């Protein structure tokens, strides 16, 4: 069980626990700077690329400077983060199936927990954006749809886990479902994106137009969020490993 020593592992002479704190600090600082930059320095963006002038909420939006666009600096980093973390669910799923070692199952499960947190944040920020850009609380727009499906997949992952008692079977099924779910998410995006929905216009912003400050704010937000994701993952992993160790010791004492 090399797992239990994760917190003692050293990198550049600094123990893992300290690294977690340092990264948490960095992540917090970066996201805060992102926040400040986003609200006080980045220029307002011209309204979404709606083809003609439209009246939404009593305002013509074709040429409006959108304050709501500010959420871009949080929404997109969180969205990218959730997908990256989800990748680890599948990655550790594959590792688990190859080795059948419990530690990979634990990692996959915690990666999925962090994914759940991040997809929910993505949905909330995306929803707020939708509300102020299109004036409705929900639009079946490809990205929101994909994240909605991803949320359902992640919830299904935990429903599946909770319905299996045998530890090893639970781990195996979860690994398989994690891999399938991870494959499913990009396909969902591709299909909803490439097949035009007849109900809503496809309004996608092209990402190319970021000015210097905008790009800076975006990148700070991205790295900040990824660090936060990593720290949440690490903290949860420690907690789980400690718990498993206690349970192992208990079993050894009882047995």
């Amino acid at each position, binding site marked *: 069980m090399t797992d239990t020593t994760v917190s003692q592992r050293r990198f550049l002479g600094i123990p893992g626990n300290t690294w977690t704190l340092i990264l948490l600090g960095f992540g917090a600082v970066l996201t805060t700077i992102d926040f400040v930059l986003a609200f006080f320095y980045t220029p307002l963006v011209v309204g979404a690329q709606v083809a003609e002038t439209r009246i939404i909420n009593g305002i013509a939006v074709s040429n409006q400077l959108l304050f709501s666009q500010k959420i871009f600096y949080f929404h997109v980093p969180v969205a990218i983060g959730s997908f990256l973390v989800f990748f680890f669910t599948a990655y550790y799923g594959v590792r688990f199936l190859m080795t*059948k070692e*419990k530690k990979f199952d634990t990692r996959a499960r915690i990666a999925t927990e962090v994914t759940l947190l991040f997809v929910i944040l993505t949905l909330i920020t995306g929803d707020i954006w939708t509300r102020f850009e299109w004036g409705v609380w929900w639009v079946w727009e490809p990205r929101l749809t994909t994240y909605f499906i991803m949320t359902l997949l992640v919830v299904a992952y935990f429903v599946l886990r909770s319905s299996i008692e045998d*530890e090893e079977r639970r781990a195996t099924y979860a690994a398989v479902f994690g891999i399938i779910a991870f494959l499913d998410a990009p396909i969902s995006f591709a299909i909803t994106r490439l097949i035009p929905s007849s109900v809503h216009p496809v309004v996608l912003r092209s990402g190319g137009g970021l000015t210097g400050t905008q790009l800076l704010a975006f990148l700070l937000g991205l790295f900040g969020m990824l660090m936060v994701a990593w720290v949440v993952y690490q903290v949860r992993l420690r907690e789980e490993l400690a718990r498993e160790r206690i349970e192992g010791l208990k*079993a050894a004492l009882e047995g």
Partner: protein
Amino acid sequence: MTDIHTTELALEVRDLSRTFGARKALDGVTFDLPKGAFLSIFGPNGAGKTTMLKVLSTLTNPSKGTAKVMGLDVVADSVKLREQIGFISHNPLLYPDLTAEENLEFFADLYCIPDAPARIEELLTAVELEHRRLDAVRTFSRGMTQRLSIARALLARPDVIFLDEPYSGLDPHAMDILDSLVAQVRDQHTFVMISHDLAKGLELCSHALILAKGKVVLFEEKEAIDPEAFSATYRQTVGMGVS
């Protein structure tokens, strides 16, 4: 151990472990069983008996160590090994909606038995179910179902037969029939049986093994067994399992 010796062994189990996280279903089990033997495995619930049978019958892979059945490795030669194994469980492992004959035909196809109709005929006669061959298994009594499942297990002429608590749920009459069927084919196969019934298990066996917490507590030939001491050890391990 020489090669000649190896071929004489039905089971070669070396440091066999099956673990998941902190839980150890099997923990360093090592023993040899000669061909033609009848091994009874005893032990409390959760001692690893079922896991052992699952590993030996290729249903799960060991985490550590090796096991060979009739000289075939349970991991590397699993598909080939499955041809040599017959399995009789307390579950009938038969499709209730199919007739006796259809069930046997299905398994004959799975094992790709060349002379299927003749073999099925022969087995149905042996288990005295010829007159019910066209009836759905659903309509069979517990004893008849068990007899048919023995026919299923013998279908591919296996070298080793695994018995997973075959007596549980059987009435005395069905038990007698099972006994006589096993006695009929006793000298053609190697048997490995899991049992809760100490008397029955000891009566049938040539070798006895007691498992507790995934470890071998005792492994002896029948001649060497002192029944008193044996049942004392058994009671002790069962007690351990409960606490």
